């Protein structure tokens, strides 16, 4: 019973944060662009999310005649499932996670790699050249950024001596990993933005060039799943950054640990949105160059230095 409650709680928290982010992002973007944003529906425009959801449900859910039907319908589901599954290993507080896997980080990396299938299959099944270009870009971007996303986390794993998120949080009681693993954090953060296809790395979508990239042909709630999936991805990456580098649910004890975890997560969500508000999209080859020629060497050097220092200490 307790177990089911935690599962329901985690899904509820994750989905409601992701849905609420639609409103948060629009309001924050407008603050940074000297506008007001949606403020008419309900108090402060909070019911905008509800209005958007109702609108999405009543839209025609159209599957193109030329699309590969089974794959087309399956693709948005894969995205949601892989991201929601990863939330299972995130500790929201002491003992507040669905299961404490001893391969937590590998589980996260594996799921995020599987998430690419959603975009590649969605783009391919749409049978539309822009969708396909978007999907190809997404797969190339993922291949590049997966590599050092994993490498940048290995420093943390070495320091905590565990792949489990719970153990990593406990290992940060002496001090957050942001200080010894600063370069790891930078590399992971950039890779995380690329992983969620957020601006400035939204090259698979690139509405200026590719209409909407891989989800050009999607409508109704199938599009809604891609849409919410993006926000779920932001929440997930922010939660993982908070867990691995900023002490997770650790914090002064006058407030509950869940609060500290959500507080840190939200700070990174804000940074995600701030990046969208401020940075232009790089060219595709610039993105690849940044990945292979700069971030990969940094991740490798960080790994080397961390290993050397740990060997010296022990």
């Amino acid at each position, binding site marked *: 019973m307790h177990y089911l409650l935690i599962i329901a709680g985690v899904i509820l928290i994750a989905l409601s944060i992701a849905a609420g982010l639609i409103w948060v992002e629009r309001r924050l973007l407008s*603050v*940074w*662009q*000297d*506008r*007001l944003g949606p403020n008419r529906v309900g108090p402060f425009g909070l019911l905008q999310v509800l209005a958007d959801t109702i609108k999405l449900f009543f839209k025609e859910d159209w599957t193109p005649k030329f699309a590969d039907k089974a794959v087309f319908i399956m693709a948005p589901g894969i995205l949601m499932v892989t991201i929601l599954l990863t939330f299972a290993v995130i500790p929201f507080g002491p003992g507040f996670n669905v299961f404490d896997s001893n391969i937590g980080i590998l589980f996260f990396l594996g799921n995020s790699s599987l998430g690419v299938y959603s975009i590649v299959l969605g783009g391919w099944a749409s049978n539309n050249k822009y969708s396909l270009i978007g999907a190809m870009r997404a797969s190339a971007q993922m291949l590049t950024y997966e590599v050092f996303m994993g490498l940048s986390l290995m420093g943390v794993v070495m320091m905590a001596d565990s792949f489990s998120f719970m153990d990593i949080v406990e290992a940060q009681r002496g001090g957050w990993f942001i200080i010894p693993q600063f370069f790891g954090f930078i590399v992971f953060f950039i890779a995380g933005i690329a992983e969620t296809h957020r601006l400035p790395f939204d090259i698979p979508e690139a509405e200026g060039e590719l209409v909407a990239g891989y989800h050009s042909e999607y409508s109704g709630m199938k599009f809604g799943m891609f849409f919410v999936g993006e926000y779920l991805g932001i929440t997930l990456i922010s939660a993982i950054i908070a867990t691995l580098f900023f002490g997770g649910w650790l914090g002064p004890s006058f407030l509950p640990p869940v609060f500290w975890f959500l507080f840190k997560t939200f700070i990174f969500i804000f940074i995600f949105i*701030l990046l969208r508000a*401020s*940075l232009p999209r790089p060219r595709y080859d610039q993105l690849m160059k940044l990945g292979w020629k700069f971030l990969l060497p940094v991740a490798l050097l960080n790994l080397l230095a961390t290993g050397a220092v740990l060997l010296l200490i022990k």
Partner: protein
Amino acid sequence: MISILRTIWLTFLHIFHKSETIEYPEEKPYLPPRYRGRIVLTRDSDGKERCVACNLCAAACPVDCISLQATEDEEGRRYPLFFRINFSRCIFCGFCEEACPTYAIQLIPDFELAEYDRQTMVYEKEHLLISGEGKYHDYNFYKNAGVDMGVKGKGEGDGEEDPVDINDLMP
């Protein structure tokens, strides 16, 4: 690299800037008096119609949204029998106002012309004619014109000299 971080920081500082948005239906923007909005027909200070139905506004209108027909009253003063502006065509360019020799047709700062029915966008003279003078006060065309239309006698107009007695030799 530095420029990217600077961009992010400067964008962040916009949190402390004031929002530019004017929440329209509750809060109206300031519109200067010469704003080109709804078109009106004005009257002079005596309360008579300024329009002399010269058709210059209709000729100047680039979208041909003005139509009128001239007629005369008992005194021989011209006025429009009907005056019709189709606001669904009007582009609010203000050429009619520029063309008008009597300041009769004027654009005023009212832009709230939305209607549910397109036919109601066609304004007749009774909708256009206002009882005031609009933007130009104390102007009466017939006080400046040469002709006597019962507004003033010969030589009594604004800045007009007395008529010369052609039978007199005195300078």
